[in-house]
């Protein structure tokens, strides 16, 4: 698949902009703060109905304005899909496919796969388990509608149950019959979702290993261990027996929202024992494995967004990544770089069609030097 063009209005620092893209490589150049990454974010909006960077739509509206629109035309294996994303302050965000309004955002998610690599963000490794759950959930949601639907239900029931437990704490009394409907849903959804995560990892981990070996020099074995209570035979009982603890802590302490995905290198936790280089390689391998698994399941090459990789990666890893580009492993690419000459030099060696765009304070113009 590829994105043919994009039209922005009042999106982030763009008053109005329109760009025609190359189906191969597109490179946004310009000084830091000019709005290069905002363009990647706009593409992310078209594919996934939300930004990659800021989850709050309002913060993506141009300063002092009331709304933003992001329009774009995709070619999905020969099928033309025009996507319009419209957000107005205080109103529900709208998404249209070929002029037809999509009621539920979740009906759009997964149609147009996208992968973003921002190698500076090792949050995925360093931060708490929430970041990792979000990463895997996002992936699963793009691949499996049922997973998405059940995850939304899970999160909703969890919120309801936690609100209820707070009321119990205020009243100093636990009411089994009131919490029962939520227990039942959370238990069965946890079991379903954990099994889906587990099955997904069986397919995903071999891809991660493959790409880590390609991207890194030293061939340490990498792995992901899925930590969860939800797959034990006794989970239902454990959950119910945990009520006392839930009551004291005023929230739900068991379920898939407590799971973690532990990244490992040479049998040890990457977070603690991985060097900075190893961690960067791992993050890139995670994303490339994501690309591969989307390609397998969606039968189209996802759009790949590479944010500032030439600056943040060492020459060795850039070279390996570019070798993959040259081998036509990827489809359409969007790259940001503050130093145009550098990207030009790197990309000219590949021999793919590259189009350069100069970004200056919310203005986009072709750059051919």
């Amino acid at each position, binding site marked *: 698949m590829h994105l043919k063009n994009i039209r922005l209005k009042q999106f982030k620092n763009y008053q109005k902009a329109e760009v025609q893209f190359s189906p191969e490589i597109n490179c946004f150049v310009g000084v830091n703060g000019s709005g290069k990454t905002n363009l990647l974010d706009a593409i992310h909006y078209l594919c996934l109905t939300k930004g990659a960077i800021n989850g709050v739509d309002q913060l993506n509206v141009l300063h002092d304005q009331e709304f933003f629109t992001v329009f774009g035309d995709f070619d999905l294996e020969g099928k033309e899909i025009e996507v319009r994303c419209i957000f107005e302050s205080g109103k529900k965000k709208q998404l249209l496919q070929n002029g037809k309004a999509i*009621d*539920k955002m979740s*009906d759009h998610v997964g149609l147009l796969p996208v992968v973003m690599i921002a190698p500076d963000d090792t949050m995925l490794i360093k931060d708490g388990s929430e970041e990792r759950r979000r990463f895997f959930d996002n992936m699963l949601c793009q691949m499996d*509608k*049922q997973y998405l*639907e059940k995850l939304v*239900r899970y999160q*909703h*029931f969890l*919120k*309801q*149950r936690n*609100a*209820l437990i707070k*009321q119990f704490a205020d009243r100093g009394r636990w009411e089994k*019959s*009131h919490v*029962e*409907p*939520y227990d*039942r*849903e959370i238990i069965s959804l946890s079991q379903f979702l954990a099994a889906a995560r587990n099955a997904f990892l069986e397919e995903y981990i071999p891809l991660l290993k493959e790409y880590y070996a390609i991207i890194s020099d030293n061939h340490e074995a990498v792995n992901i261990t899925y930590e969860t209570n939800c797959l034990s035979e006794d989970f239902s009982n454990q959950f119910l027996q945990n009520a006392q603890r839930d009551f004291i802590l005023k929230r739900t302490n068991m379920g898939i929202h407590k799971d973690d995905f532990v990244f490992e290198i040479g049998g040890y936790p990457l977070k603690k024992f991985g060097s900075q280089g190893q961690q960067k390689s791992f993050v890139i391998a995670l994303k490339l494995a994501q690309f591969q698994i989307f390609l397998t399941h969606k039968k189209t090459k996802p759009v790949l967004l590479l944010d500032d990789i030439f600056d943040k990666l060492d020459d060795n890893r850039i070279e390996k990544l570019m070798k993959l580009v040259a081998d036509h492993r990827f489809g359409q690419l969007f790259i940001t770089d503050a130093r145009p000459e550098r990207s030009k030099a790197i990309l000219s060696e590949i021999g793919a069609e590259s189009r350069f765009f100069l970004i200056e304070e919310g203005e986009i113009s072709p750059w051919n030097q």
Partner: protein
Amino acid sequence: MNFPSKLIEEAVNEISRLPGIGKKTALRLALHLLKQKENVTEELTRSLLSLRKDIKYCSLCHNISDAEVCSICAGRRRERSIICVVEDIPDVLAIENTSQYNGLYHVLGGVISPIQGIGPDDLNIESLIQRIAHTPETEKVKEVILALPATMEGDTTSFFITRRLKEFGIKVSTIARGIPIGGELEYTDEVTLGRSILTRVNYSAE
């Protein structure tokens, strides 16, 4: 919006507090009333006031009513052994308009949602239980139909009520959810379609 008159402004502000009415519509309504004879406005205010003051809720089913017991609960031709549980008053009207149901109703006044601070005790659930427990032998309730919204809150409420009704050993059913009449399968969302398959019914060619 700027108004030439304080009186207009006040009226528009009040009218636009009604659901589904914005400032523009409110202004149009206010100006319309000004063009009519004075007694039109008087009739309107009088009927609204007496609605607010004199309205009663049925002591049995909590439906809107002019008397202590509503016309449905008092109706002689009504099947008294079936109670249909609904979220709110408009649902009673909607089901009545189908002419397909001849039993009684029970209006909950909402659905359970702890986030919004609504618990079972804030709804007419206990009165449903009492109603079933205390009907005379001749009017024994045989079936409760749960006609609650197809939302997570609706489902939770249905589950809670079903649990509470367990001790009575009566039949509990929920209204069917699925493909709309005249609907094409390919345009039906996956959740609805999946559910329709799970809750499929026997088909007879007799």
